[in-house]
């Protein structure tokens, strides 16, 4: 069970993103039933849960792609619950969506430049070069239509595109989905790299073992409710989590 020491780590970080009693629905079908989640400065928070639990819905609600029916979302203490998606991007939220969602007919480089669409500073070109250093394959293919990339490359592009916005919190929706083990490892290295740069991360994963191993704190989502939460190691020791998500 949670030790007071481990809880202290989670509590110390100043909150960046706070989701309180969040409810969301598709038409008349309620999907999220009062979710409470916090992402603190420099933290990597993992969210695991079965198919259809509402993980994607939660991330879409945080990004503003769907309207919520109750609760609040705050970023650095400011309520953004009803702000349109572009305002949330400007405020610092970037989502790497499920299924990558690159701009298929546009070139790799245009995809990256569009990632910085909300920025007006003059370091965008520098960041573009940084992304090419981080993902050399994208540099090789920068003139190619993004839709022609392999699944793994598209995932790299989707992450790089999100990073081009210089997010203050990065949301990732199943970035390892459908990728070969070697690529999964590569993606997780990129995520660790982002964390070490101090970017707060909310990571949704079905690969629970990998997600819990690198998490500072984690939540288990079941049919639209948080059922278990704790630090990564705590959840990995939890009997229920072991049975349901770690296959032990």
């Amino acid at each position, binding site marked *: 069970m949670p030790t007071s020491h481990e809880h202290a780590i989670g509590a110390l970080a100043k909150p960046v993103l706070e989701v309180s009693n969040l409810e969301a629905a598709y038409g008349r079908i309620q999907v999220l039933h009062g979710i409470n989640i916090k992402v603190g400065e420099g933290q990597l928070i993992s969210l695991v849960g079965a198919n259809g639990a509402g993980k994607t819905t939660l991330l879409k609600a945080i*990004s*503003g*792609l769907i309207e919520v029916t109750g609760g609040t979302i705050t970023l650095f203490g400011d309520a953004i619950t009803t702000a*349109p*998606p*572009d305002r949330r*991007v*400007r405020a610092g939220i*970037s*989502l790497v*969506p499920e299924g990558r*969602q*690159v*701009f*298929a*007919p*546009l070139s790799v480089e*245009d995809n990256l*430049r*569009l*990632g910085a*669409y*909300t920025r007006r500073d003059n370091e965008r070109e520098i960041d573009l070069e940084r992304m090419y250093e981080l993902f050399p394959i994208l540099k090789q293919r920068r003139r190619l*239509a993004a*839709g*022609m*990339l*392999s*699944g793994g490359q598209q995932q790299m592009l989707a992450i790089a*595109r*999100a990073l081009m*916005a210089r997010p203050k919190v990065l949301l990732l929706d199943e970035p390892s989905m459908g990728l070969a083990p070697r690529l999964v490892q590569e993606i997780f290295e990129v995520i660790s790299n982002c964390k070490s740069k101090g970017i707060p991360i909310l990571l949704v994963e079905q690969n629970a073992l990998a997600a819990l191993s690198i998490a500072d704190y984690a939540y288990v989502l079941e049919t639209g409710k948080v059922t278990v939460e704790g630090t990564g190691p705590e959840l990995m020791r939890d009997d229920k989590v072991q049975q349901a998500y770690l296959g032990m």
Partner: protein
Amino acid sequence: MSELLQFVFSGLTTGSIYALSALGFAIIYNASRVINFAQGDFLMLGGMFTVACTQLGVPLYLAIPLGVLATVVAGALLERLAIAPAGNSNVVSLIIITIGASMFIEGVVQILFGKNQHAVPSFSGETAIPVGGAMLLPQSLWVIGVAAVIVVFVGCFFRFTMIGKAMLAMSANREAAQLVGINTRMMLLVSFCMAAFLGATAGIVAAPITMVVYDLGQMLGLKGFVAATLGGMGSGVGAIVGGLLVGLLEAFVAGYVSSAYKDAVPFVLIIIILLVRPGGIFGAKSVDRV
């Protein structure tokens, strides 16, 4: 030979007008998947506002930009008052709204300007220029020239500007566009303004040839739509090629068969397209790897 050239001139002239109209369809379609059946009315409004200005004594060179501006405002109002409030309605509802808007615009214009045709003087005289045995009207040169310049500008806009790329991104993947911070509501407004601009310009340069009447937009809009579909809805190159093709075919049918069949060309074409190649000539081939 000189006869053929004559038909080519005439076809390129009307084709240029259809091409601009078709580009307007494509731009709004890309931003929203909506087929804007009021596109033809933008052509009519451009001509009608210009006529109204000249009737008030404004010289033509001022009346033209005013006509374009007023039409762009009308396009913006159409989006703000009719499309935006419908918000998340499905595409079919939005298309029906544009049909209603088209009837409304034509009704208002009919009340204000009557049912009769209004003439606009040619920009630089009526003296035809002999070219290779055929005669080319100076106004045809205006139409083709203005269309060419606008097409180049629109091409550069989408290729080189961030707003242009954002519109392409929005067309490719609306949610992802929102996730990089593109204000999709604003982009829809921009697309209506652009479509209105293209329509107004086409309508005004064509006005000395077509005359202006309240329901002029019905035929021009329909032919623009056929041109856009023929080229592949949403494709810029397709809209231009489609527009020129429809114009040329019409001219050939009118010249070699009978002008009575001219207006049947687009309808026959659209049936053929739907049967043979529903995606159009440059129809969006998905570049997604599956």
